[in-house]
Structures are given as C-alpha cells and as structure tokens.
C-alpha cells in the first residue's frame, strides 16, 4: 500500500509531538498578534503565547465555537491581510450567517497535500480517472478533492453534482475509476443503474471516496455490493479546512487524522473537560499550520473516539471513528445542516402561534426525508380544508427557503407527542447510521 507522505504520515510519535509543539507555538503567536478575538480570549485568562511549554498547556485555553466565527463574520477571524488570501469558501450558513473561511497560497498547498494523502490511502493513483460529483462552489468538497487528485497525477473529471443520467453516461464512456460524492448520492447512482439496466461490471469504477455526511457501516456494505467498489470514508469541516482533516486507509478501521497539521482532543461536551485517550466525546481541533484561518480548540460538535493503537498500514497518525452523532442538535439532511431551532422559528412566525413540533428524519430509498409534525391548536386550525391545506403549504414553503432543504409538514392532534419531564423530544432520527 502506497503512502503519499511517509515522512510525516509514519512519524515517530515523539518527533510528532515535538513538531506539533513547535507549530502550535507559531499558531498561537499568529492568532494572538493578528486576530482580535483570540487576543481577547488569551488576555481574559492572562495567557501569553510564550507561556506555552508543553502540548498539554493548550488545555488552559478556551474553546472556539461557531458563535465566535459568526460574531466575527465575515473576515474577523482571518489572520492574514486579504491580499494574502487566495481562496474563499464557506459553510452552508443555514443557521444564519455562513462561516467564511479563507486560504493563503500555502494553505491551499497544504490542503492539496492532505487530500492527496487520504486519496492515496484509499488506493487512488496517477492511473485513476477521478469522477468528482460534489457540487463545485463555496462548499469545500469538490475543490478539495479536485486539487488533491491532480496532485497525485490522476485524471480529474469535474462533473459536479446532479443529472444522474449524464453522470452515469460519462462514468461509463470516460471510464471513471474513482468516484467522489456523498455516500447517499452513490446509492442514488446505484438505484439509477439498476433501473436503467446499467451493469456495474461494464464500468471501470473500483474505488469510492465518500464524505460530507454521516453514514453507517451497513451503508458502506450496500454501496460496495451494488457498485462493486471499495468504499472509503474521509472527514473534514470547512471551519478547519474542508476534506482532508482525516481519511481512511485500506485497513478501514477509522480515519487517520493528519496530526502534523491538526491537533485533536476529545472533550466531555457538557463540562469541556479533556477526556483520557480512547474515550467517546466531542472532537476539538486546533490547526497547526493554517495561515489565513487558524482555529484554536475549535469545537466540531462531532462525537467520536480516537484510537492510538498502531495501524497495519504503517501510518502512525491517530485514527478517529466514524462520527457517532453531534453534541448539539444539528441534523445533516441531504448534506445540509439543519437545526431544530430553525424550524421552531419558522413555526413561531406563522400567525404568531407557538405549536409543539417534532422532527422525523428518515432515509427512504437512500434519500433523506424530513417530516415536521406540528400539533394543531386553535390558532392554526381552520374549518375550511382549503385554508387548512394552504396553511400547511405556506409552512412547507417557508421551511424550504429557510432550511435549504424540503420538509413535509404533517398536522397532528394536540398532545400526540411525547413529553418527558416537561421537555419535548424534538428529533426522531430513524436513519440507521
């Protein structure tokens, strides 16, 4: 199995810790001097970057969360002047203002290298024809994989997302061998292939690199069986870099976090306390090399576990398990971040009513579905069916424009939703992830 950057990926852990400490100092220096938000955070607890002696000293620093990024929208968290920023991406921004992230020329180079690492780990080589079916745009997925694949020397087809029939035609005719998309889109493709009678044997596809949404081992097996490929997982988030924070090798026992660039911690999401190795908790990441948009102790809200046991592939970098959930109530539906509070806001805007509601998330034929159950009350009950239906449609329309993803509204009778100790159960996620 080829390793893209064996010098770093197989580093002795003592040497790695030294490298991390050196880079962490540089990062803290950079943010202290260039990002007012961090300077304030450090000053508040009487911390100066010179105080950092060991990696453990990082634990003294406060976390950075999405709220910090939002407060400093759009460029307040940038640590370099705009003339040094050569690329801008952003998060989906479904909870209000999006998070804007910037990359210096060196950041783009690092990003490209890290994507090349996990693509190589998944078995992609210069011989491959890489079919990128992520949407090209502000979303980090497509461009991240694109440059990484080019760096490896593979041939890239930047087909972007949508138009499944055309995707399949190109995949067949251009002999795509590596597929890049969300796992659910891979299954949509498999469905279409079955309906149109396209035999996976007639394709050259052999490996898939999937990310941008949570998925289960069961889903992996289904993708592998139906597309006749090896399916691999990768992890990243725009606030930290995009794809390339971590990626699976062919041993497929967790995603190697590229620790020479990102320092991971696992914390108790309730207390913020750092948990011992092997514990399940929220992943917190500090970037070690980013110039334009460094983050210190960024709370990813993703729940996972780190495994420091040596991997058969020879890489020494720690592996993170597939994320098991979120420490906040965010849902990822069709790749879009959805918070129950957004739905609540829409409902409360309707005729000034304050209904009880519940979200039922499911995955039907590999497509995520969102049903919003709303308990009817006198303010939203109309004797005329026409008016009642119009109300439902109006809510659906507002939800679609607020969330960026469609939701079905179902009116239910009062008190039909369970209330535990006075607190409603807001989300029922039936997807087996």
């Amino acid at each position, binding site marked *: 199995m080829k390793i893209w950057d064996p010098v770093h990926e197989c580093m002795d852990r003592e040497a790695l810790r030294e490298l991390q400490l050196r880079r962490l100092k540089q990062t803290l220096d950079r943010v202290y001097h260039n990002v007012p938000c961090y300077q304030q955070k450090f000053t508040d607890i009487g911390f100066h970057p010179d105080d950092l002696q060991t990696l453990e000293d990082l634990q003294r620093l406060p976390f950075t969360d999405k709220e910090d990024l939002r407060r400093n929208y759009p460029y307040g968290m940038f640590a370099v002047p705009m003339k040094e920023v050569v690329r801008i991406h952003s998060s989906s921004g479904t909870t209000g203002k999006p998070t804007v992230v910037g990359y210096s020329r060196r950041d783009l180079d690092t990003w490209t290298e890290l994507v090349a690492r996990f693509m190589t780990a998944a078995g992609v080589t210069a011989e491959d024809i890489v079919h990128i079916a992520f949407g090209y745009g502000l979303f980090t997925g497509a461009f991240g994989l694109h440059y990484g694949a080019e760096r490896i020397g593979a041939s890239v087809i930047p087909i972007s997302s949508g138009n499944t029939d055309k995707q399949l035609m190109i995949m067949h005719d251009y002999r795509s061998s590596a597929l890049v998309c969300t796992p659910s889109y891979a299954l949509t493709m498999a469905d279409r292939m079955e309906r149109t009678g396209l035999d996976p044997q007639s394709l050259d596809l052999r490996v898939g690199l999937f990310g941008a949404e949570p998925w289960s081992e069961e889903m992996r097996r289904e993708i592998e069986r139906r597309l006749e490929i090896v399916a691999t997982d990768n992890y990243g988030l725009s606030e930290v870099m995009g794809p390339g924070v971590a990626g699976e090798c062919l041993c497929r026992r967790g995603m190697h976090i590229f620790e020479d660039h990102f320092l991971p911690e696992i914390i108790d999401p309730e207390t913020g306390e750092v948990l011992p190795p092997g514990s399940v908790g929220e992943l917190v990441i500090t970037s070690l090399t980013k110039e334009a948009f460094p983050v210190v102790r960024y709370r990813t809200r993703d729940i996972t576990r780190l495994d420091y046991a040596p991997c058969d592939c020879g890489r020494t970098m720690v592996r993170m398990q597939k994320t098991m959930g979120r420490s906040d109530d965010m849902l990822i539906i069709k790749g879009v971040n959805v918070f129950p509070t957004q739905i609540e806001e829409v409902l409360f805007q309707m005729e000034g009513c304050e209904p009880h509601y519940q979200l039922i998330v499911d995955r039907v034929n590999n497509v995520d579905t969102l049903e919003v159950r709303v308990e*009817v*009350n*006198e303010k939203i*009950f*109309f*004797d*005329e*069916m*026409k008016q*009642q*239906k119009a109300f439902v449609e109006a809510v659906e329309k507002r939800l679609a424009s607020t969330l960026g993803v469609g939701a079905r509204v*179902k*009116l*239910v*009778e*009062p*008190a*039909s939703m369970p209330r535990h100790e006075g607190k409603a159960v807001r989300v029922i996620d039936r997807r087996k992830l």
Partner: protein
Amino acid sequence: MTVQQISVFIENKTGRLAEVTRVIGNAGINIRALSLADTSDFGILRLIVDSPDKALQVLKEDGFTVSKTEVIAVEVPDRPKGLNGILEKLDQAGINVEYMYAFVEPNGGEAIIIFRFDDIQRALEMLPEMDVKLVKSDKIFSA
C-alpha cells in the same frame, strides 16, 4: 339566521372518530348531521349537534382542537332537482359555496342542506330573496 356547527381536527388514525362520538355521546349530546373532509394525514369533522356549546366544551376538555362556525341551513324539497334548483340560484347570484352536506329530516319529509358560504352576510341577505327557505337552528337541534 345561522346555525352553529362544531368542527373538530382529527388525525387520520384508527379510533379517533369513535373517540369524538364517545365523548359527545357520554355528555348526552345528540348528533343531527355530520360531514368529514379528509386528507391522508388529517380530517376535519363537522358536526351539527343539539347542544353545540356543550359539545365544544367536552371535546376541548378531552384535548381535541375544536372550533365553532356559523353555517346556514336550507330546506330543500325532497324530490328530483330539489337541490339543483337552489344551487343554480346561488350560482346566478355569484355566491360561492365553501362546503355543504345534507341530511333528510325524518319528521318533516324535507331535505336539509348545511351550507358554508365564503360571504355569509351576503348569502343571508340574498337567500330569502331567491325564495330559498332557511331553517332555524331550534328546528334542527330539536327534531
């Protein structure tokens, strides 16, 4: 001269309709006429009962979402074209029917149609002029 109708929101699941009739039956309330408009998710049950205020109260107490609506009851000759005659007159007068349902008055031998119009005031003014006979609520409630 309107009639009070009780509307109840009913989720489309087994037993809910029976629950409504049980609640009002236990309260000694008699149903005179009803209609059910439904979708795959929910239905709106409309009831004409002999004591609407009491029905409203007991259903609310049982957790149902209920509303009271003013509708108009019209007497229709119980013979072919009896209803058609009235509908044509309404059409000519440009009065729009939101919904309607009918029952036959067992004692009087007349059919009674319950109408919900979009402009109830205008309907109340026009109907007598059109020779349409309105039915008083006490007649409906107490038959």
